[in-house]
């Protein structure tokens, strides 16, 4: 039993980069996202018996992150600093700077989506979950997920067009 726990902890450790990435789609700020991951990992350890071997571990963890976000972290994020200063990179080269700016623009647009939309975008577009698995994480039917994802993309497209106009 202990061996299983150890193996599970190891597998969770290898997923940490992806957990951070998913958390960043929910919480704009790096520290908030990492707080979210830390809390979720601690919860995962405590509730490791509720993980069913053979099922997707990443899905299980994404669900924990989602719940931790909704229960606790969301309300305590650094809203006043929602738009962090544009960071590093401009001096490295034009191509790099352009790609960097493009990434920042998309991140910013995602941060302006509704929470429901951020969740589907994070699970499907960022983490690459199949619709069926993403729907399970969110406890919604696949049809609902599909239409939500389509609306999220439309909203995202509008935000990006707006940004393009204002720049």
């Amino acid at each position, binding site marked *: 039993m202990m061996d299983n726990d150890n193996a599970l902890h190891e597998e969770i450790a290898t997923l*940490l980069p992806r957990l951070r990435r998913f958390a960043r789609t929910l919480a704009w700020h790096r520290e908030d996202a990492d707080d979210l991951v830390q809390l979720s990992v601690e919860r995962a350890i405590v509730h490791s018996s509720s993980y069913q071997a053979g099922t997707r571990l990443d899905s299980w963890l994404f669900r924990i992150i989602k719940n931790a976000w909704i229960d606790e972290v969301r309300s305590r994020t650094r809203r006043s600093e929602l738009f962090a200063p544009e960071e590093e990179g401009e001096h490295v080269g034009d191509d790099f700077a352009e790609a960097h700016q493009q990434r920042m623009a998309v991140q910013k647009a995602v941060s302006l989506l509704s929470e429901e939309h951020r969740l589907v975008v994070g699970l499907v577009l960022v983490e690459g979950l199949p619709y069926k698995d993403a729907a399970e994480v969110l406890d919604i039917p696949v049809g609902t997920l599909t239409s939500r994802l389509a609306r999220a993309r439309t909203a995202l497209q509008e935000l990006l067009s707006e940004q393009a106009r204002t720049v």
Partner: protein
Amino acid sequence: MKSFSDETLMAYADGELDEATRRAVEEAMHKDAALARRVARHKAMRNDVFAAFAPVAEEAVPPRLAQPLRQATVVSLDSVRARREAEQQAARKASRSRHWSWPEWGALAAMLMVGVMAGHYGLGMLPLENGETVASRDGTLVAQGRLATALDQQLGGNGGPVRIGTSFLAQDNSYCRSFTTAQDMSGLACKQGGAWKVQLAVQGQGQGKPQQGEFRQAGSEMPTPVLDAIDQRIAGQPLDAKAEQEAVQRKWQR
């Protein structure tokens, strides 16, 4: 021409359509450039969003996130081979490659180091802390001083500089007891050939103060490697209070 909903085109871009619908969309795309552009936009959106967050997964993970998943640091072990073999066996059982995390490699390295030191210096003493020492005899670590006294005389769950956790009869018919010292050093010792041979000692889980009496058997504060070592050796159930007392009186001889 058949028309497709935006959701269907999106699902096509995401690779979510069944074979028949996928073919139908592809055929339509050949004939309808506008439809092909809509699909391309969905694909581009997916790529852009993925690319926007991809660098996050390349960042170094802050240590505080991995910390709760980290194994205890094993600082001494009389038999490195036993654990390594157990690991290898488990890996074979799982019949898939097992990736060791850095903390585990670190633990193994620390374990090897102490093993090598003990072996190299032959009769060196390894002070655990004041009055609790482990000496090396023929490459085996043996409890001495306060630790040996506690292992001989103390009953499980009782306080003191050394706390005794679980006592049990091992598969090789020797008695073994888990212990935790005042400075959070935990381990397992077995009575073999008249001495308490320390099977392993683990430093610092940082799991707080002893819980008096509450976790008399295999307390939850015991580090995982120690619990693993117990699991590997135990024959049947841990000793209850009465059996423990009798064993003390028999000086832990079978």
